[in-house]
């Protein structure tokens, strides 16, 4: 007998409705899945067989054919397990269907437990778009599925519970009535004071800016960079606190608005990032190691999964030891840095991932790492440090608006000196400046302004304009270098709450220029 069950798979960041057609027919016993199923899906046969047996049902000794429609769509992952198992039970008439239209999304264990799969949120959203009002998912994924407006989510722990749901229709005791998600409400929960976890050795803890002593220049540059969404590069020897400073970022950024939060949550869901219990309003902070592969950075792979740059969408991508990253990996950042998205094509499939991340990077001043430190001499050949810093080239160079040298802090400054500002003091300034920038046409952060929109935003007086030209000479700047100064100056003015960009803003902005010419000037001067 033929049974048809609805389910969904993940395609990039999008869910796709899949019709699971199960034909249990007389003939030589066998179990075939057709419809461009990948390996994980083919292995569903073994999981379903075991789950059925261990749940006390019979895996029918008949000819079972599972067709996954639409036939031309490549299907991946284990999200169809539950639907296939229910389809076999219906097709072999071990279970009679109740009333109602529903879809099932979940993976099965051999012990017949229903497990959550990555991408519940986009898959449920896709099912709702296609008219489904009831969805069965693993119990632990209920919170995530309920983020979608207008759907009744039924959480099940085991195959048996799923069978009950199917048999009983909507009257099962397992039905959970979802509260409609009103996004505005969640926003009002506000961003609680940034979590301060003193033990920074814990990889996930966010250190407080108050722990960074000295480094006034870098602290200021970080504030400007976050206020304007500018690319930032920290250059300093090991132990100067580059990484610590960068890791304070999550505690400094304002929470995401509804739209951005939803996009970020969808990406986290599709990437299988931990349990999702609500909208993720904390801007993502991604910190891939420099050995990261091209596919892991950009996204793709057999499952068209999102890469680091997409997971950093609406947040910060932090690249520590920038020159150590593979050349092709850095080169791959070109398109996303310019367009805020990345197009990925794999055999037969193509998709576009969002990638509106802010780039923050750190590097040593030279290959040995000790140029400029007084306590340990640099062992690099002469003039190599300048060349090393010039290696940050092309697209990255143009997208990094602030370059900061971080000398090692004297021991005296670490124990003594004035108490530095904490994240709680700095974050509101950053949020206010971002608010000012996005209120102004064209409604973007200053880091993404160019050309006419940039000049319009800056409203330079002729005197200030002349000053910009003079200062651009410092880096023998082309048009891009001049724009760099203007973008940063606009943000500095925003941080000061000023409408017009003034000379002092421009002068500070020019300070954060790439250091290679400064290094050469120092050799000559």
């Amino acid at each position, binding site marked *: 007998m033929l049974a048809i069950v609805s389910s969904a798979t993940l395609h990039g960041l999008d869910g796709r409705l899949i019709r699971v057609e199960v034909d249990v027919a007389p003939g030589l016993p066998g179990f075939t899945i057709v419809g461009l199923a990948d390996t994980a899906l083919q292995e569903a046969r073994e999981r379903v067989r075991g789950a059925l047996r261990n749940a006390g049902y019979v895996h029918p000794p008949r000819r079972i054919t599972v067709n996954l429609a639409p036939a031309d769509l490549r299907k991946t992952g284990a999200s169809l397990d539950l639907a296939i198992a229910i389809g076999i039970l219906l097709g072999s008439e071990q279970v009679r269907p109740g009333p109602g239209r529903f879809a099932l999304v979940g993976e099965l264990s051999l012990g017949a437990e229903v497990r959550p799969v990555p991408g519940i949120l986009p898959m449920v959203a896709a099912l709702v778009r296609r008219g489904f009002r009831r969805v069965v998912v693993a119990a632990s994924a209920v919170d995530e599925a309920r983020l979608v407006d207008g759907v009744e989510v039924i959480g099940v722990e085991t195959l048996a519970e799923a069978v009950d749901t199917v048999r009983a229709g909507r009257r099962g005791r397992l039905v959970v009535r979802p509260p409609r998600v009103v996004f505005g409400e969640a926003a009002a929960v506000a961003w609680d004071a940034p979590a301060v976890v003193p033990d920074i050795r814990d990889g996930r803890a966010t250190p407080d800016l108050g722990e960074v002593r*000295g*480094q*006034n*220049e870098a*602290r*200021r540059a970080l504030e400007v960079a976050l206020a304007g969404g500018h690319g930032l590069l920290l*250059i*300093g*020897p090991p132990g100067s606190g580059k990484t610590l400073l960068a890791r304070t970022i999550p505690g400094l950024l304002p929470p995401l608005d509804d739209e951005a939060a939803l996009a970020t949550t969808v990406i986290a869901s599709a990437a299988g990032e931990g349990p999702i219990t609500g909208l993720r309003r904390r801007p993502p902070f991604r910190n891939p190691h420099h050995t990261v592969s091209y596919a892991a950075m950009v996204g793709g792979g057999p499952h068209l999964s999102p890469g680091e740059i997409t997971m950093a969408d609406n947040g910060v991508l932090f690249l520590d030891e920038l020159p150590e990253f593979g050349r092709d990996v850095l080169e791959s950042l070109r398109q996303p840095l310019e367009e805020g998205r990345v197009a990925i094509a794999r055999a037969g499939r193509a998709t576009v991932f969002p990638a509106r991340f802010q780039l923050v990077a750190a590097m040593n*001043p030279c290959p040995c790492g000790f*140029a*400029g*430190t007084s306590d340990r*001499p*640099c062992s690099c050949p*002469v*003039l190599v*440090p*300048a060349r090393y810093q010039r290696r940050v080239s092309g697209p990255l160079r143009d997208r990094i608006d602030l370059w900061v*040298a*971080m*000398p090692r*802090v*004297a021991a005296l*400054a670490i124990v003594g*000196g004035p108490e530095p500002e904490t994240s709680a003091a700095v974050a509101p300034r950053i949020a206010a400046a971002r608010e000012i920038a996005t209120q102004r046409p064209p409604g973007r952060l200053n880091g993404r302004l160019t050309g006419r929109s940039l000049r319009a935003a800056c409203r330079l007086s002729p005197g200030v304009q002349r000053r910009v030209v*003079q*200062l651009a*000479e*410092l880096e023998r700047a082309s048009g891009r270098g001049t724009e760099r100064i203007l973008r940063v100056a606009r943000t*500095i003015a925003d941080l000061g709450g000023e409408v017009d960009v003034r000379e*002092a*803003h421009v*002068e*500070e902005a*020019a*300070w*954060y220029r790439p250091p290679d010419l*400064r*290094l*050469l*000037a*120092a*050799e*000559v*001067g």
Partner: protein
Amino acid sequence: MLGIGASGPLPAAIGREGGPSDGRAGEDWPARTTDDRSAERDAWAVLAAVDGLGPVGFGLLLRRYGSGVAILEDASRPGGVDRLASASEAVAVGEHWRPHDGARALGVGIAAAAERAGRTLQRLRDLGLIVVTSADDEYPARLAAIEMPPYVLFVLGDPVALGERHAVAIVGTRRATERGRATAVRMARDLAGVGASIVSGLAVGIDGAAHAAAVRAGGITVAVIGSGHANLHPRAHARLADAIVASGGALVSELAPDTPPSRGTFPRRNRLISGLADATVVVEAPARSGALITASWALDQGRPCFLVPGAIDDPASAGCLAFLREFPDTRIVAGIPQLIDDLGLADHLVEPGVASAAAATLADVGPAAARLGRELVIGRATVDELVAVTGWPVASVLAALTVLEARGLAVGVHGRYRPAGGLMLADPRAMRQRPKRRRAGAA
């Protein structure tokens, strides 16, 4: 080969020519040259471009042929290569000297040089190079006194700069520390102040700092480069090279303009640095520094050699200390006034007035930048220090520093900044006292 060589002109003259064994051109040769001095100078310049023909070989060939013009003329006549080859071979045997590429290769090289002589001379004119030969009056007497002086110098700038009354070489490591650089700057400034020209090698580090300071102080400075003028190295110093020439100094090389820099050319030019100076000072040299080669040349040439000592556990000074220990003829720099005294230049001491000049450079940069300029001169180097000492917001400090940078009055590496340009020569004591004096005046 031998037969052809024997039939060449004046074979017997070789043995009779009893020139000085140090290989310098014979004292009497100018008397036999043609009246046309400029043609002869051109011929020497052309021969200087021949690979493998050094001062020794050239001197010998010159005595063999009588003049550079004659060498080139003979090279372009049929059989010239063979005659030159056998001549240099015979010369080589007689003088226990061996041309490193073999006599024939040398003959071929000279013939080729003769052929492109026109182009070579045009190239010199295009580059604006002046040729000074050891036969010219402008040839620096100090250099003529050393062993194996180059017979041709290519000069960009004013050749008179090579013959200033007093000249001191200031050399040191390319990996200079800030302290070493500051020492080089003050030393070059003060020596320039007493009228000495500063000779160095245009390398990054100590050399560059000494040149720049001399230029800033309005002195004459001579850079001996280790490559041809068309291959200036390091390229980072192209602007400094322009400034040296513009301020009345000179860029000198014994190498033809298109010679690339290589491992061998730098140690070789070091003998010219010490040779062009009355005395050589090594400011900073770690172990195995090239600056110590210059110091050795100075000793070989019988010129005073001074070294700035350092702390015994400071790797930046290890080379200086080892050199001082090994060679008893060396002298120690006990201070810049003492150095000036030791050099016998104390009589020329004039009030430098550079401190007031530095104060003047700060007059029109605005009060904030001027304040930071003074702090940099005193030795505060990081933004953190400047923020702490002024109590200003970071933003203001960075903006004011940018103003200084834009005026060329401050430069920075790796987050540490120092005075530059006109401010480079400022005296820290004067900067520190200035506000005090003002307060005293007000009281």
